[in-house]
């Protein structure tokens, strides 16, 4: 894969394909990916890639890229719409060098329409699409999710599109242009919430910022928080029995009339009296959905116990740990990734593989075509 992408959506898309075993070469501009400054994020989105720096504004730089494309299966880019064409690295140009190439484009708004060239970042789409207002709740201040929902969705969608295009190429020998954008992703990652019926979108009920209702919410135990969920009267009954509080059973809302406050008060008083571990263990053994509210750090320890954390040696940061593949496959298990490349780390190596001699590489360096 030739990865011309930066930032998050494009970079993480090829990172996911690297998880799946693709050999990815990240091509950076002279200044490097603008999101290199986000150290931990950059490492994660660019895991397992090699990296070169190429000045695509020079004929010699484009020549290097064209040689790469001849050997490649996939090109992925997330330039502002129009830039790829100006640089001569758009689909129409590159397929001249490799008719079977799969070319994936990730933009902000798509490549047609008046906003095709408008730049965009994940939080804008969170703001515009209602995600921040929804998380904050009616009448409250907007809440920035701090999870790049549209970037991450765009990345997975792009990786999915590339995988399908490879499948199609295996069946028919044809390459193609695959495209997605943050606007599409921010709707996809709220697809249920964007389901409008009777003119209104689907909306979850809520209690404050702590949950959906008394039976689906966070409660504070003696030493921390837990989340529990009873979806049916049966589960509610099981929970009340588990707590040896049959008196609470009658509180299960009937005919849609929820007695949230009294239920919440009763449960809050009960749960405050024991530890998170005690309650979660008790509820889980009874078959009721319950979990401790873990911090990211605690979740990271759990992932490590499950073998889902990969330790790598970063050329810039030394020993670091990354989350591993988000899928398990019995016959083609994901690849344990390497670190993200430092700027231009593999330039010479990749150029040699393309047939450039050491002196040619040196002269490209001298001409500031590569670094």
């Amino acid at each position, binding site marked *: 894969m030739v990865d011309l992408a930066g930032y998050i959506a494009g970079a993480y898309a090829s990172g996911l394909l690297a998880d799946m075993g693709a050999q990815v070469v990240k091509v950076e501009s002279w200044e490097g990916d*603008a999101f290199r400054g986000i150290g931990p994020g950059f490492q994660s989105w660019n895991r397992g890639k090699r990296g070169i720096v190429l000045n695509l504004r020079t004929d010699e730089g484009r020549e290097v890229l064209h040689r790469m494309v001849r050997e490649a299966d996939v090109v992925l880019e997330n330039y502002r719409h129009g830039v790829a064409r100006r640089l001569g690295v758009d689909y129409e140009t590159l397929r001249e060098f490799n008719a079977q190439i799969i070319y994936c484009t990730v933009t902000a708004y798509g490549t047609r329409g008046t906003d095709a060239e408008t730049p965009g970042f994940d*939080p804008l789409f*969170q703001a515009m699409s209602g995600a921040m207002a929804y998380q904050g709740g009616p009448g409250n201040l907007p809440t920035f999710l701090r999870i790049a929902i549209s970037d*991450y969705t765009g990345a997975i969608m792009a990786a999915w599109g590339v995988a399908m*295009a490879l499948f199609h190429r295996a069946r028919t020998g044809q390459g193609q242009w695959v495209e997605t954008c943050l606007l599409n992703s921010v709707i996809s990652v709220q697809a249920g919430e964007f389901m409008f019926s009777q003119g209104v979108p689907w909306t979850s009920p809520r209690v404050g910022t702590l949950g959906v209702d008394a039976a689906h919410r966070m409660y504070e135990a003696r030493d921390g928080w837990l989340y529990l969920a009873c979806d049916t009267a049966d589960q509610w009954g099981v929970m009340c029995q588990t707590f040896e509080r049959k008196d609470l059973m009658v509180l299960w809302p009937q005919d849609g009339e929820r007695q949230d406050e009294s239920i919440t008060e009763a449960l809050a008083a009960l749960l405050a009296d024991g530890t998170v571990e005690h309650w979660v263990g008790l509820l889980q053994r009874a078959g009721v959905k319950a979990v401790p509210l873990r911090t990211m750090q605690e979740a990271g320890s759990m992932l490590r116990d499950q073998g889902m954390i990969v330790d790598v040696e970063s050329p810039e940061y030394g020993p670091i740990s990354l989350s591993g593949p988000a899928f398990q496959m019995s016959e083609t298990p994901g690849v344990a990734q390497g670190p993200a490349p430092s700027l231009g780390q593999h330039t010479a190596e990749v150029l040699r593989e393309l047939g450039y001699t050491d002196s040619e590489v040196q002269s490209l360096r001298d001409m500031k075509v590569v670094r």
Partner: protein
Amino acid sequence: MSGVLDGITVLDLSRDIAGPYACMLLGTMGARVIKVESVGGSTERSDTRFFLWNRGKEMVAMDLETPQGREVVLKMARMADVLVIDRVPAEAQSLGLDYDSLRENNPKLIYCAIPTYPEGSSWENMPGDAYTAAAAMGLMAGRGQSGAPEMLYLPVAAYGSAFTSCFAISSALLVREMDGIGQKVEVSLQQGAMAMQTAGFTTGQAFEPRGSSFRQGISVGIPVYRLFHASEGWFFMACGNNTFFNKLCIALGLEGLADDERFRDAPWGIASENYDALADILEPIFEAKSAEHWVHFLTEHDIPSGAVQERDVFVDHPQIAVNEMIRPIYDPTLGATLQLGVPVWMHGQPGVLPPPTALTGTHTESVLAELGYSEGEVWELRERGVV
């Protein structure tokens, strides 16, 4: 060929969000999707979102817990290329629907499991959903001001799992096309949450901690990539690279900021001790006029921004019409609806918007006939309440 997954049959044995959504997306790309629902119809039909997740599927109503029902589903699994199931491992096994049982039946099957927690983990058989998975994965604890927990209302774990399942299933189809082998794929909701928060799990001693700053009572982001309060409403301004920051300084007539050593490495290189200083400069400027004004102003100067608004306002964004991302669909159960369009464009084989969700049991007879059941046999299964 109209869709890139033409000729692929997906058997959807899943419920809730992740599995059904994944199967619907595969259907959008041309796959034939057969969904097994309970005989009386899924209780999830009371949720309007059901009619989004299940568009375009052939609906077979069947009791999986009867021996005859199991026989039917085994025949279906034999003709399927992909099977999606979201039961916990113990339950899948007791139904005879675990991978080892089905592989014997169809060695080239791609079996995609979407449990809440990964198989083999200590919670593998615990009940859960998108919210328990998110809570367990650190998406809710300590998110509010002063470390208060905060519910994450979007079922991000389920969405992440749906998209990642599509990616993994399609990769497995590629492997099968090249090597002729089927396999088991697993994308638990927990892993869906991980995929949607991947950078959050990167750790290393050399990384400097950098938090989002709290201003005006909420977590806003970093100083030039953050939410701002305007005289009316809120907006997000995203100077996601140094060029956009320079454009901002020029647009506001604050060229000095671009050279100020505290801020010149914007956006990511601004030290957190300087966050408030920059916020104190920018906030009064933005407070003076409306969000609408500022979004217009910033757009004119080619600086990315967007107003905080509600979903029902966003659906009128002109680019949504261009991209056909929100489509009017007349659903036989709900009536007039607006629903998700096709999010990934395969320009060689553009997908198709699937027809609306069929009623319970619409395709029971046609699918059973295809499996070789005679009309009399179907009638008998129906009499026994199996279908």
